[in-house]
């Protein structure tokens, strides 16, 4: 046991040393090396709704998203399909690797932001408000094309500073309750917070149909809720702080299958 632990530390040190030798920052270490999806903290009834594409109300959003995919909008007279053709092929794996570094914009963008970039820059159509029904419909439709694929975001190279900023946000104590994200999702998962069974706060199920809201919600809407829970001041959805946090969360969930559209209480 002790030996295994020592070997483990040795390996980590080695990785760090190699990274330093190459001039990159050291590999980050996950607090939860083998993450568990939120579905392990849901009741069988909720899972029964999630696991049946007919019972799952998020498929109403999927259908709206598919219609929007093929709808011509904006001044350039194009639809998403004009450039990206069949989403079942071209969008496969996209949700699993987003948020991602956008070389031209030189920053990390979420799936929501990428959709709006295409709308404003390519289609000449207005941006859709973050967490609005039409945007959630299209991201849910896109996310479905990656269902079952492992989350696999790239935090290397120019993406790293955005990841580091997300990690700092995650580990900062905030709100009147002076809690970090990990105070609930790392130190106390599997325990009850009032009536709520705490999960590890993994993001692989988003967008999700939330029973409480009775609609599909985006990840950043959930994040606002979590910050409000500690009586903190939540940054705006779609802003830089939450974008970086979402990037960090994707890395925390690295390897978990994309579950969108999941169902959560």
């Amino acid at each position, binding site marked *: 046991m002790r030996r295994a632990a020592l070997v483990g530390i040795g390996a980590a040190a080695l990785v760090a040393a190699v990274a330093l030798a190459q001039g990159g920052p050291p590999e980050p270490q996950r607090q939860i090396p083998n993450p*568990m999806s939120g579905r*392990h*903290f*849901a*009741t*069988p*009834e*909720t899972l*029964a*709704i999630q696991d049946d594409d007919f019972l799952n109300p998020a498929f109403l959003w999927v259908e709206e998203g598919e219609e929007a995919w093929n709808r011509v909008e904006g001044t350039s007279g194009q639809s998403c399909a004009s450039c990206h053709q069949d989403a079942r092929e071209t969008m496969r794996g996209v949700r699993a690797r987003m948020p991602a570094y956008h070389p031209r914009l030189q920053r990390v963008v979420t799936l929501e932001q990428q959709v709006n970039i295409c709308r404003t820059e390519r289609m000449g159509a207005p941006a859709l408000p973050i967490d609005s029904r039409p945007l959630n419909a299209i991201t849910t439709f896109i996310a479905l094309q990656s269902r079952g694929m492992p989350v696999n975001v790239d935090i290397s190279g120019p993406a790293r500073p955005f990841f580091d900023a997300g990690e700092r946000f995650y580990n900062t104590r905030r709100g009147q309750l002076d809690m970090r994200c990990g105070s609930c999702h790392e130190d*106390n*998962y*599997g*325990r009850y917070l009032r*009536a*709520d*069974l705490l999960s590890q706060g993994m993001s692989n199920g988003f967008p999700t149909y939330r*029973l*409480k809201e*009775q609609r599909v919600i985006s990840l950043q809407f959930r994040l606002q809720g979590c910050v409000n829970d500690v009586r903190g001041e939540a940054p705006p959805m779609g802003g830089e702080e939450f974008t970086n946090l979402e990037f960090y969360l994707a890395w925390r969930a690295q390897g978990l299958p994309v579950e969108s559209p999941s169902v959560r*209480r």
Partner: protein
Amino acid sequence: MTTPRTPTRRGVLALAAAGAAVAILPLPASAQLSAGAQAAVDRVRGSRTPQEGRITLRAPPIAENGNTVPITVSVESPMTAADHVQRIHVFADKNPTPDVAVFHLTPATGRAQVDTRIRLGQTQDLIVLAEMNDGSLFITRAEVKVTIGGCGG
């Protein structure tokens, strides 16, 4: 091995499995109802005395969120022209208004079984009445615990 600080994956799963949808054990239908629910039941009942039995209500014994509680109601009946269930009424004892749904059935349905999803503002009893084509009336009543209340109806 020492006891882990946080439950193991198996522990979490076992905990979750305890919530599986089951046919809920009926409570005595005679226990006191809220005034609203009693009035609603009386409106259906008229001068008839409901009998217990025949109805099975499936619902989660503990609902994760009162906004979306899946329920299944089935009634033993041959569903023939001569002998069938005509209506199934569902009431929630402690919702702001007790009415939940009325299902109208015909022999064409073949089997008296319906499913829907309902809102429950708090832990409370569901009351189900089944009216047969011969005028006989059946009742059942069962409790659903709600951990997070829905906005009710």
